[in-house]
């Protein structure tokens, strides 16, 4: 005879997710940004890189939805195409940071002792160094460009994931079911793969969405400083840099790319918060 304490995981999750306002809002916003990036490959109102010299710094109109920039390019098309850049940088940088960071964190947690101490002090060190500053130095060293800014942001993500993985993994290692697995004869590697990782995946997914948002902000800042994506590839951050030069003549130029950044970040953060609520950690350690 079995008492179902809580509805089973899979169908319950979808139902609860659809009723969770910030999850839904975040998913919709993020979905729209991704859609915009995908559509930009096949269609934009104007070719994003096409310069119409006669149409420089035009205000928004029917022909130019969001106006034109100092080179006479269509801002709406540039923003659509710029989404590709932000998503690319976010995905790859978080991917790098997550892969390396999770590996380090799991290793530190499984080994404990000196290994853990060394891994964590190293991550403290990277952490203590202002992230933007190291990104500025790295891109200065290797030259501006998308690839280098991805590496710079990715490196900054490593200690973030290493720390959170280690903390979460340590709490799993302290649980009795791990002791039970050891008593059953399993070694550190199998326990890490079979027990620790599945129990921290949800925490990592939540953190990944948040780091994704931070990566988009960082890429925008680097591009704004002229260290990120190089012209002519469209990038939201660089659009803002260029807009600032013409702020008195064409103030709207400085508005739309910022909105695009803010909405993507907002969407991802809402998504992350929603996921965190839905994966309620209290359920896992319910007594």
């Amino acid at each position, binding site marked *: *005879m079995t*008492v179902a*304490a*809580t509805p089973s995981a899979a169908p319950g999750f979808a139902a609860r997710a659809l009723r969770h306002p910030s999850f839904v809002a975040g998913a919709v916003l993020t979905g729209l940004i991704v859609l915009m990036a995908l559509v930009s490959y096949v269609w934009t109102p104007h070719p994003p890189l096409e310069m119409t010299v006669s149409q420089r710094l035009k205000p928004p109109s029917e022909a130019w939805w969001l106006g034109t920039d100092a080179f006479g390019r269509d801002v709406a098309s540039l923003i659509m195409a710029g989404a590709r850049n932000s998503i690319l940088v976010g995905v790859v940088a978080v991917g790098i940071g997550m892969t390396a960071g999770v590996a380090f964190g799991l290793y530190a947690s499984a080994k404990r002792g000196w290994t853990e101490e060394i891994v964590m002090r190293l991550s403290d060190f990277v952490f203590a160094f202002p992230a933007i500053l190291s990104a500025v130095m790295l891109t200065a060293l290797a030259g501006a460009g998308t690839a280098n800014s991805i590496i710079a942001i990715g490196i900054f993500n490593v200690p973030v994931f290493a720390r959170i993985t280690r903390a979460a993994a340590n709490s799993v290692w302290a649980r009795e079911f791990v002791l039970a697995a050891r008593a059953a004869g399993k070694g550190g590697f199998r326990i890490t793969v079979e027990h620790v990782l599945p129990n921290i995946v949800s925490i990592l997914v939540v953190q990944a969405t948040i780091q994704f948002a931070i990566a988009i902000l960082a890429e925008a800042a680097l591009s704004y400083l002229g260290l990120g994506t190089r012209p002519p590839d469209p990038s939201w951050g660089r659009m803002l840099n260029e807009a600032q030069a013409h702020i008195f003549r064409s103030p709207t130029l400085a508005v739309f790319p910022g909105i695009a950044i803010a909405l993507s970040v907002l969407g991802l953060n809402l998504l992350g918060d929603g996921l965190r609520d839905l994966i309620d950690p209290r359920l896992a350690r319910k007594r």
Partner: protein
Amino acid sequence: MPLLEVENLTVTLATNRGPGDAVRNVAFALDRGETLGLVGESGCGKSITALALMSLLPERARIAGSIRLDGRELTTLGEDQLCGLRGDRMAMIFQEPMTSLNPVQTIGRQVAEPLILHKGMTRAAARERALDLLDRVGLPNPAARLDQFPHQLSGGQRQRVMIAMALACDPDLLIADEPTTALDVTIQGQILDLILDLVEERGMALLLISHDLGVIAETTQRMMVMYGGSVVEAGPTAEVFARMAHPYTRGLFAARPKLGPATETPLATIAGVVPELADLPPGCPFANRCPLMIPPCNDGLPPPLPMGPDHISRCIRARELVASA
């Protein structure tokens, strides 16, 4: 007029499976100098009853019925007036002395706090009095403890501090919610002795909550057995132990291994599991696990049947049960 009078107390909690009555139609009275035990398993509603008496229920809880302290109705009292009563006229000791003390405040300050709050004492006077209290509860070297922090004390010592804190303003009513469950058995005896001595010394009323029939048997004059939010049996402790008049009380008693000579016969068990709040049956809450269940058991919460002087049982077959034994 008794010190504490509870009538038809019902507390409804929002659970993740819909609203459920954590406490159902509970009624009792308690006078100064009396000790009343409340026994039951986890989730039976005993802690919620205690929190209802202190008006410290979680925000979403709904409360019905009446709680009167010295004739004063508490359920309709404003928050300010309740704050004036809590810690002064009624006090509470909790189960976990580790987490129930503020880790970043000194012992002295925490014990002195109710004195400053309710008695209007100066810091210095309250500190003086806190020292006396810590001495009274048997904390070794109390003067040095005043400026220590909770993490520097052992579990038993922390529980003594909790008791000193609860007794600071000489309350009329002391509620002790599983005060010894987190402690070792030899310390448990000391703490129970201390509580009983203080209750006697000051003429307080004590409501002692425990899951352990042994603790209740040894410390209380009267007792109530709770199951599924209802008091299923109540009476003078000796009387209840002599003539258990509810199948749940009997089940609880029989399920516990005894200290005496070991037997080959297995322990008596209660079939099934405790139902969740939201799934409580409409009738007797114990019906679906009860060996004596008959169809009328499901018709509604059985009324309290008088079984002896001051002894009641909410079982429609209580008389048969007592007669058969």
